[in-house]
């Protein structure tokens, strides 16, 4: 018999905010244990939540990016469960009127295009972290992550393979990064997902027994876990190796196995009820339209525009549109210097090299696009040579304060003098007078150049930038 797999995903994404969802504590990743806490987020009695506006901004943004309807009156509810990483014994989340519903995400796999329906997106708070300490035989609680804002994106059970799940997650990640909703770094846990999975005979309209794997945070682990679960389900159905039960399972990626978890809560056990401490969030037209207007162009639309209108190659367009930071920088620089090709070259070769050397990702590019455009323009106009322009670029990456390329070039003697006639004359004469040194240099003896260099310097009475002289000299020898 042939089987089909039915998968629905719940994806948790940590929002890119400065502060927590209901208090003003830092939402930054890391920090010393319990350094980002206050009486509100560590559950002291009498503390009241105050909603962070930006969380709603980002919830709406995510909803719009995923083609959802926005609930213009959205409310928070309490989900009760007792665990020490949850200081209030309830999590504030959205159950009755989530911020966004009924969305659609398009994915593409080797089998073609497919649309995945989104059931809802809700805003909620994260829980704290527990460390189990063998030495003291106790559990230690860190509330830094408590109340850090999340959205949970709940899909309909429209996915049918690990490949589709990965394509879906990558699509979500790309859209949410583009809209600056989250950095979606799975390795830091800012994007993680619960996989709901069941298997049924092909063509059957009855769903099989569903199991859930929680807190998956790597694409390879997700693929392995899905493949394992599908095989386990089919084995149980065909060979009766075990009785399948609806349950939550934990994936152990080292052992390559999933295990049943002990607690089996159902939705009823969470006793959801409207949070009486938070009045409804009402999104008026101005707020709604402001968010709508701030949405970025979708990456594939940008890509097509870069190719069709700006004449970039597909390769360049792919590289640039992989990151919003690169797109923003590219577009701002292009506006200043007017050459898309030049900007693409600078970003893809020079900037990418510098990022690699600094072991930074493309999303960490902080370069100001307008400044980059000014630098490229200096170079295109022949005012600064490419070698020196690269030095300025390095400085732009390293400097804490903004660099004005023209002023920096001036201050460091990088402006190509208009009166290069004299220098060129001197170089030509010196090179012509010492063919042996030139031949030695070309043969690999770097030091041979020093003699000619010294002669030129003397001839120019030292009135030149040694760097420029060296470059002009090398350029001349290269041209021979």
């Amino acid at each position: 018999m042939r089987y089909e797999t039915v998968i629905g995903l719940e994806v948790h994404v940590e929002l890119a905010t400065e502060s927590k969802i209901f208090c003003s504590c830092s939402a930054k990743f890391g920090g010393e244990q319990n350094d980002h806490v206050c009486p509100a987020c560590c559950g002291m009695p009498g503390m009241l939540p105050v909603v962070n506006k930006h969380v709603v901004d980002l919830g709406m943004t995510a909803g719009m990016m995923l083609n959802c309807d926005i609930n213009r009156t959205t409310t928070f509810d309490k989900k009760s469960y007792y665990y020490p990483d949850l200081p209030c014994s309830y999590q504030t989340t959205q159950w009755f009127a989530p911020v966004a519903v009924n969305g659609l995400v398009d994915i593409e796999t080797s089998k073609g295009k497919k649309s995945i329906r989104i059931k809802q997106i809700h805003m909620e708070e994260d829980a704290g972290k527990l460390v189990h300490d063998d030495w003291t035989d106790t559990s230690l609680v860190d509330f830094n992550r408590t109340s850090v804002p999340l959205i949970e994106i709940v899909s309909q059970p429209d996915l049918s393979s690990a490949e589709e799940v990965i394509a879906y997650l990558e699509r979500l990640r790309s859209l949410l990064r583009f809209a600056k909703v989250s950095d979606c770094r799975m390795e830091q846990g800012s994007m993680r997902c619960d996989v709901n999975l069941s298997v049924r005979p092909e063509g059957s309209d009855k769903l099989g027994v569903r199991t859930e794997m929680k807190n998956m945070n790597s694409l390879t682990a997700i693929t392995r876990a899905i493949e394992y679960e599908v095989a386990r389900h089919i084995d149980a159905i065909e060979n009766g190796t075990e009785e399948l039960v609806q349950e939550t399972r934990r994936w152990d990626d080292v052992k390559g196995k999933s295990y049943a978890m002990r607690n089996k809560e159902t939705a009823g056990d969470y006793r959801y009820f409207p949070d009486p401490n938070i009045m409804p969030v009402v999104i008026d037209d101005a707020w709604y339209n402001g968010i709508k207007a701030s949405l970025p162009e979708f990456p594939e639309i940008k890509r097509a525009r870069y190719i069709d209108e700006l004449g970039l190659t597909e390769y360049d367009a792919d590289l640039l549109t992989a990151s919003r930071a690169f797109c923003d920088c590219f577009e701002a620089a292009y506006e200043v210097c007017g050459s898309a090709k030049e900007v693409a070259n600078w970003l893809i070769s020079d900037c990418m090299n510098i990022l690699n050397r600094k072991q930074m990702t493309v999303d960490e590019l902080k370069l100001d696009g307008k400044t980059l455009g000014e630098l490229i323009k200096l170079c295109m106009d022949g005012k600064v040579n490419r070698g020196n322009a690269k030095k300025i670029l390095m400085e732009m990456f390293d400097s804490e304060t903004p660099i004005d390329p023209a002023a920096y070039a001036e201050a460091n003697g990088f402006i190509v003098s208009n009166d290069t006639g004299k220098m060129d004359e001197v170089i030509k004469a010196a090179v012509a007078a010492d063919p042996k040194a030139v031949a030695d240099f070309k043969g690999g003896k770097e030091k041979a150049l020093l003699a000619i260099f010294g002669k030129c310097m003397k001839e120019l009475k030292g009135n030149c930038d040694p760097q420029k002289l060296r470059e002009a000299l090398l350029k001349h020898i290269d041209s021979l």
Partner: protein
Amino acid sequence: MLITDKESFKRLQKLNQLALTEKEETDVLAFFTARNEDITALGAVDTENVERMVHVMPMETVVREDKEIKLFTRDELQKSAPESYEGYWQVPRLVE
């Protein structure tokens, strides 16, 4: 979840980590059973085409700007903790 008998009530107690005396148990269970009747009675009301009441108060929330403000130190907050250890709140060990 509807509390209808001793068993479902035990489940609720466990979820809330509550320990009740036998007398308390009987009293509270009687209270819950009576409320079930109220809830069932409410089910008879026709709510077709009635807009959901999102909140009992006709008010909307105020929102705050996304600004980080540090108001408390860890030591201040942990003064009231029964146990703490190297900046962590310390609780009885939980088996995973």
